[in-house]
């Protein structure tokens, strides 16, 4: 990968050039995200609440929902993310080859334009075998597509013609693109995937006008790379000190340190801060990389203009389980502990639901959001450190030892599928996994562009359970589950809450479900043609509310569907309960749009 170096001078120049366009694009998107008729960014708004003010479809009438129209993307792979809606046009993306369609809502989804990139074929082995993409972004009359080969492309939103493109990483070294970009002011922000290839993660801002780089902040490395100020950047209120991104690594290991940034990015326009999490340190064998491995597994708050980190919080120092910290940060203003606060709520892969003061980075709440979580007893609120149970410490147990019964599994109590928040109920709605694992680390050596994993895992349902997922409502003040609906399979679909008192999500069998926001009672379900790992959205067109979701279990599921999940060690009696997913669904790639009958 080309190494771009941040210099203060470059940032200042970029700032000066960008400042006129900045105000414009910023104001435009801030206005648009407040218009419930559109769905202008992947998670609905900068705060990532996935909440819509629309209430035409509500708890009373949602049972009458029916299919309005459907659209095939032509790709049979995992479909994550979801469509954007801006005025009369819907923008739909597909996984590799990363096709983008502009559909005419005035004409039942007639194709206005289609863009299909030509990608470096060397990306295929790296991306193998499922090449998800979490969707496109809009800003400045452009659609931003972040391709599998880590190329960021700006398309003219009206015509689909390419305006500019820039390479954000080298797929030959294992760097790939899967995340949805986000437009903030005059910049578009993108992360990078490839933690299992020893890629060093970074968040990078490009100027939307021409694709020139404005800043890049690495997850680890010297302060000039991480854009961390030893005095001003804080961790739980204290300055981090000099070269905090190298001092907890042995030798040069930070150079292949992982901490990739493939999740979601939030933005608070008032504080002008961007929030996101970094992923696991490379390799998965913790014995090979002593130290806290800062700043992998970390929540970052960065200045949107300069990229400088205001505060950081490392959730899982020295990861031993692959609990990537990349899940979305949901920004809400809320009473916490009797005091009104600007907070960030985050459901981490490690099974803890965090509530953090997003101005200062102060840790307010950290509680388990799945009772099965056992790798740590609790988080020490003074140090922020999880109290690891030695039995489940894969480092403590050592290389070539199989540590068993660790909950959650590496895919986390929740993966990237985003949760939602309803200001009406004050609750968070979280799609979760209820899966545990055995984890055996072993020694690996690094070769650029080759997998750098170093552990074998097996996964199975949490003890005593006959289901692999739950859809829960969470109180972020008390740190408590309010209600929990068991799901046969993991819930791998992003949720949507609406002012109509309804919460929507998809299931791996392919159901779109609507539940009551207060009680969790199921109000409606419809079986789409394939499993849903996409995120639900809603919009209004011609005075009518619609709900849209992508279906499409991926290439991986193609094999995964061969059988159900069973655990030979957890009692054979449970086997029957995990009837295979292939009995329920098949590969697909379809958008389904729902409406109420006229």
């Amino acid at each position, binding site marked *: 990968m080309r190494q771009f170096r941040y210099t203060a001078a470059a940032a200042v120049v970029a700032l000066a050039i960008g400042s006129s366009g900045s105000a414009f694009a910023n104001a435009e998107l801030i206005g648009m995200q407040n218009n419930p008729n559109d769905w202008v960014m992947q998670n609905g708004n900068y705060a990532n609440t996935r909440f819509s003010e629309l209430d035409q479809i509500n708890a009373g009438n949602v049972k009458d929902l029916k299919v309005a129209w459907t659209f095939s993307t032509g790709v049979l792979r995992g479909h994550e993310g979801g469509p954007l809606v801006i005025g009369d046009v819907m923008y739909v993306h597909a996984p590799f080859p990363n096709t983008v369609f502009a559909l005419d809502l005035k004409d039942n989804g007639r194709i206005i334009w289609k863009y299909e990139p030509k990608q470096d074929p060397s990306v295929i082995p790296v991306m193998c075998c499922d090449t998800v993409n979490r969707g496109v972004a809009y800003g400045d009359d452009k659609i931003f597509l972040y391709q599998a080969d880590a190329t960021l492309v700006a398309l003219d939103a009206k015509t689909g013609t390419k305006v500019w493109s820039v390479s954000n990483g080298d797929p030959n070294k294992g760097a790939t693109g899967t995340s949805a970009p986000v437009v903030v002011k005059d910049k578009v922000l993108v992360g990078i995937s490839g933690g299992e290839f020893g890629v060093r993660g970074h968040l990078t801002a490009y100027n939307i006008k021409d694709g020139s780089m404005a800043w890049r902040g690495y997850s680890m490395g010297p302060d000039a790379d991480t854009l961390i100020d030893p005095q001003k950047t804080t961790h739980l209120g204290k300055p981090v000190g000099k070269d905090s991104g190298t001092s907890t690594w042995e030798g040069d290991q930070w150079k292949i340190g992982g901490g*990739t940034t493939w999740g979601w990015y939030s933005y608070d326009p008032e504080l002008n801060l961007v929030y996101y999490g970094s992923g696991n340190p490379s390799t998965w064998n913790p014995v090979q990389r002593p130290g806290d491995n800062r700043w992998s597994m970390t929540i970052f708050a960065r200045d949107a203009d300069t990229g400088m980190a205001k505060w950081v919080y490392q959730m899982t120092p020295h990861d031993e389980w692959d609990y990537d910290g990349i899940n979305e940060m949901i920004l809400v203003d809320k009473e916490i502990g009797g005091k009104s606060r600007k907070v960030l709520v985050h459901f981490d892969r490690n099974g803890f639901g965090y509530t953090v003061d997003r101005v200062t980075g102060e840790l307010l709440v950290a509680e388990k959001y799945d009772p099965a979580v056992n790798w740590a007893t609790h988080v020490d609120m003074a140090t922020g450190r999880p109290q690891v149970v030695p039995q489940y410490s894969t480092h403590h147990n050592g290389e070539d030892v199989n540590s068993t019964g660790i909950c959650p599994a590496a895919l986390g109590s929740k993966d990237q599928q985003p949760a939602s928040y309803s200001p009406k109920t004050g609750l968070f709605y979280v799609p979760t996994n209820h899966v545990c694992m055995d984890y055996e680390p072993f020694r690996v*050596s690094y070769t650029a562009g080759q997998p750098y994993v170093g552990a074998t895992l097996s996964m199975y349902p949490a003890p005593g359970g006959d289901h692999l997922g739950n859809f829960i409502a969470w109180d972020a003040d008390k740190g408590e589950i309010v209600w929990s609906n068991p799901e046969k399979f993991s819930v791998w679909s992003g949720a949507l809450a609406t002012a109509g008192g309804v919460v929507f999500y998809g299931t791996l069998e392919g159901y779109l479900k609507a539940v009551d926001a207060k009680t969790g009672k199921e109000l409606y379900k419809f079986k789409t043609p394939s499993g849903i790992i996409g995120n639900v959205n809603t919009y209004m067109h011609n005075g009518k509310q619609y709900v849209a979701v992508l279906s499409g279990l991926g290439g991986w599921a193609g*094999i995964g569907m061969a*059988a159900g999940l069973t655990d030979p060690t957890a009692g054979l009696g449970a086997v029957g309960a995990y009837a295979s997913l292939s009995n329920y669904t098949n590969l697909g790639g379809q958008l389904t749009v729902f409406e109420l009958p006229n």
Partner: protein
Amino acid sequence: MKPTCLRNPLLAALLLGPALVSNGYAVTESTGDYRIFTFSAEEPYFYKDGKVDFGTYNGFRRYHSECHVCHGPAGLGSSYAPALMKSMETMTFAQFVDVVVRGRQQRANFVMPGFAENMNVLPYLHDMFAYLKARADGAIPGATRPAKFPKVDIK
């Protein structure tokens, strides 16, 4: 876990899990003692009392960190790459080494990368071969972690 590929193996593991047992193979047990067993192309693994030698077990680990993203858990195949437990019914060690070291691309967009530079693969080719042969013969049922004899240090 994050890279595209590897996130999804997790999903696959989640969907699939370790129990693709149903085979009707009759596996022949090895004779002799696991402590004096050594790999050969003709007799790649040692199998007795439901357990395999440590090398074959290592093959299971290495396969699942380097190959399963494309070839599926336990050599079961995927929509992307062939089921190696099937391939192994006929493949010789020499043919196996040739494909894995040099790579192959017979169809557009379906790439078997060459592993000539990968030090997590090259030293363990015989272990992976043994594991996949044991899968093909039914000595290792399903995608489970195989039961193993202790590691033998040969001087």
